[in-house]
């Protein structure tokens, strides 16, 4: 009883208005989050489950709830929509598989190089490597289009080596298919010829990135490595020189130092870079849009582009929103998985290292 009596008194006391004042102070942030994030996402979810055709408000009474129909049309119902989605997922999967590891490795190597105290003209190299990142993607795509035309600079260069270059942005041959045809395999074994996951045959799933997509992969690595180099560089500079010296005293060579000292200490940055890279490459859109999206046999289309195309061109707004939502959930799942993989499961490991250390130290 005394406790219960105390409560109202406390509420009416000097701290009585705190909660209200608190809400007042966070109100702008809450309103902005709601208007620009919560409401749009909720609306998108609604659109993805409605038959809205892009005319007037999606909340008008003419719009009907259709449940999971839009999701079914792109995932399980046999047809063009399903195959377009399957192809887009296939294309983007190869894009991610190549872009994310390559851009991370190149960014890290560049960062280590421009971080060396002995390097002359460090400022120049840092600027040079970062430059593509501050240039608009659209401008770079257009430059690449000139470089990679059939008679462009790239083909002139490899032509000098006696190689007949492909028509990069228009070539729909998958790299793995191309490799297989070098061994005389040009048609699928019967097992792979049947339509499989998302309506795409196993043979098509295994096509690899097309030559056109490969050009875009090179472009993506070129533009984003600089940004991630900057992140790595900042992290490298926070590694104190005493750690370098300590590893030197312990007799670690440059390679050993890199893998045993530098990389583990960059783990948080590595997580950031991989996450940003993963999200960015599952959302790739600008390059595809500039190139028209449907060229090269449909091998450069991605889910993000397809979401745009279904909505604005084919007026299937529900399907467009459904694609966007699948992508959204997929990216979250991937990020969680990656977080789990990169989590420090350290205590036991560290103990083990210490233990071996003692054993090794023993005979000495």
């Amino acid at each position: 009883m005394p406790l219960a009596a105390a409560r109202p008194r406390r509420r009416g006391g000097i701290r009585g208005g705190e909660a209200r004042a608190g809400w007042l102070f966070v109100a702008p942030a809450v309103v902005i989050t709601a208007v620009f994030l919560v409401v749009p996402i909720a609306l998108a979810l609604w659109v993805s489950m409605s038959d809205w055709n892009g005319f007037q408000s999606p909340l008008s009474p003419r719009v009907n709830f259709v449940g999971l129909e839009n999701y079914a049309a792109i995932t399980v119902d046999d047809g063009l929509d399903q195959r377009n989605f399957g192809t887009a997922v296939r294309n983007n999967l190869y894009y991610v598989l190549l872009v994310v590891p390559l851009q991370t490795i190149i960014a890290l190597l560049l960062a280590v190089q421009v971080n060396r105290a002995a390097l002359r003209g460090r400022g120049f190299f840092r600027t040079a490597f970062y430059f593509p990142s501050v240039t608009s993607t659209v401008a770079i795509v257009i430059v690449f289009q000139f470089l990679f035309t059939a008679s462009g600079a790239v083909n002139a260069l490899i032509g000098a080596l006696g190689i007949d270059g492909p028509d990069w942005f228009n070539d729909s041959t998958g790299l793995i298919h191309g490799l297989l045809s070098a061994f005389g395999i040009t048609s699928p074994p019967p097992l792979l010829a049947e339509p499989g996951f998302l309506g795409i045959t196993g043979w098509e799933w295994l096509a690899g990135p097309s030559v056109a997509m490969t050009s875009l992969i090179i472009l993506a690595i070129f533009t984003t490595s600089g940004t991630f180099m900057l992140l790595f560089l900042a992290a490298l500079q926070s590694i104190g020189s005493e750690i370098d010296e300590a590893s030197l005293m312990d007799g670690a060579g440059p390679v050993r130092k890199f893998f045993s000292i530098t990389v583990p200490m960059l783990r948080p940055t590595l997580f950031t870079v991989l996450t940003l890279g993963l999200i960015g490459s599952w959302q790739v859109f600008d390059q595809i849009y500039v190139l028209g999206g449907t060229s090269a046999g449909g091998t450069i289309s991605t889910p993000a582009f397809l979401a745009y195309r279904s909505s604005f061109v084919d007026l299937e707004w529900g399907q467009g929103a459904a694609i966007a939502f699948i992508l959204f959930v997929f990216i979250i799942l991937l990020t969680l998985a990656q977080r789990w993989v990169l989590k420090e499961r350290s205590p036991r490991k560290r103990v083990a290292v210490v233990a071996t250390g003692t054993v090794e130290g023993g005979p000495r």
Partner: protein
Amino acid sequence: MRTSQWSAVALATGLAVTLAACSSGGGAADGDVESGQELTMLIGSSGDAETTAVQEAADAWAEETGNTVEVVAANDLVQQLGQGFSGNNPPDLFYMPWDQFQSYAAQGFIEPYAEDLANAGDFLPALVEQFSYDGQFYCAPKDFSTLGLQINLEAWEAAGLTDADIPTDWDQLATVAQTLTTGDQVGLSMGREYARVGVFMNQAGGSLVDGDTIAADSAENAEGLAYLQELIAAGSLKFPQELEAGWGGEAFGLGKAAMVIEGPWINGAMKNDFPERKYISVELPAGPAGPSTFAFSNCWGMPVDSETRGATLDLIEFLTSDEQQLAFAEAFGVIPSTEAGSAAYAEQFPENEAFVAGVEYAASPVAFQGAAAAIADFNTQLEQIGSAEPSSLLAPLQSNLQAAYDEANG
């Protein structure tokens, strides 16, 4: 985290709708409020010549009636239209592309105003049919174009060909294309898309839709593709992509192709980009089943329940009048959409006679609701035309069109 950027776009649009709904005050009354209106017109322009001509025409009307018209040249017409409609803020008047018309009509986006026009009876019957949905004439055809065969006269003479050699059937076309093919020049080029390739399928007697059934995988269509494959195999037909050109007209202007299949819009492009190119346009050679060409047309679209209906109708009547259409024809080469206008055009521009002659036997490309996606997929498949069997190109088209047709009519 920028996770759902694109879903957010879809949603932000929805949000914009809600906001726009709150601010849609001040609507004009229906009927004959004919002055003081501020109209917006969205056009998909072929270039400066077209934008300027349309702007001038709109200004002339505005001055006369006391309204104002803002002409906006779209970068991407279909996308900007979609955005306008989903934001509940469509332009008062816009170019309605032929391949989107059926979808827009079926979805109830556009106003069926055409029968209320004073000049509703003047349009060419084929165009009235193209812009009718469910038996109702929806929107006024803006103008139209047909496809013809352009011949580079220098290359023609250099190959020792004369007027008597102008091809009138498939065999002759194959022969002259072969003759004109040299080391750095291919005999014939055209866009690698249904809107060009489909002409040959029609000339062989095929069509994608036969009455109420989808007939994309017919033997006639396969014959049309097979003919093109012969030309490809002979090396006398290459597509602009293979010639490093953006479209047929560019390949033609650059001298990489001696003949192309394009419409009257090529005249404007040649005048601007390749003024030294000497060429003529002739009717397309006939196939085994007779002559055929495609007619393309846009119409003047008006959003449903437009608040500016009265003023917009008046503007459309002005823009589709014979005099105004002939002025457009002079400015950027299109053919007037009225019977009297097109006849006057043939007299006034004898060099474009071939395009007008094509009206007699022109077909409209297939464009029922949902067909656009199937056609887009077919265009993608056509990249394999050099190596694939015609039937394997047409089979997916058949099933995709069938699915779209069932959905549109189901």
